[in-house]
């Protein structure tokens, strides 16, 4: 699946695909949102919750590794070791 194909799906479909195929990278919290970052094939998906796992505010998709920056401290090296 490409980034564009993923973006064309409904939010429910996106959530289902992420649940089945997404690789969890990390979790971040700020005053407004709890965010989960997943890798899906060659791109990244960040889920913003206004109420954790209950209300999704938005889902953003990126193929840039800069989206990883806030999560770097949580990323375990073992995931990169084959």
């Amino acid at each position, binding site marked *: 699946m490409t980034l564009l194909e993923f973006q064309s799906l409904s939010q429910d479909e996106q*959530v289902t695909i*992420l*649940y089945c195929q*997404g*690789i*969890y990278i990390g*979790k971040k919290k700020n005053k407004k949102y*709890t965010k*989960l970052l*997943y890798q899906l094939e060659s791109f990244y998906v960040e*889920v913003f919750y206004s109420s*954790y*796992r*209950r209300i*999704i505010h938005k889902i953003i998709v990126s193929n840039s590794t800069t989206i990883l920056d806030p999560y770097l401290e949580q990323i375990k090296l073992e*995931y990169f070791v084959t």
Partner: protein
Amino acid sequence: MSNPVTPRNVVFYADDDADDLELVQDAFARYANNVEVVTSKDGAQALAYLQSLQEGASIPCLIILDINMPLMNGREVLKKIKLMPRLDSIPVVLFSTSSSPQDQEFAIKYNAGLVTKPLHVSQMEMITDLFIEHCSDEIRRNISKHSR
């Protein structure tokens, strides 16, 4: 007429993520008549609780372990459980943010279930059912009989 005594089944759940602890406790609320969820915030605390269960004390009918926990991760706790004669036959489910092939192999090796954490609470009912499916037949019948 007095209410019939409802058997209590303990589900033990260890996870360092307070949000996920709350989510699972909420999910089991529909079984509240006969399921009690006991929680722990890290692997070492989980192991200490399980080791503290005295002979004759009721033991959990199901153990749910987050894989990534501080002090002792879920894999290590599972290995220790399998060395404890009183607890080694309790069904265990590893609860993970996403399941890697390594997690799947590990779960199979140690005869545990592997369930991925939900992205949305709407998936939680299905996941709770997956948890219950790992309980023994007797416990499952008991839980379903009292939960509807």
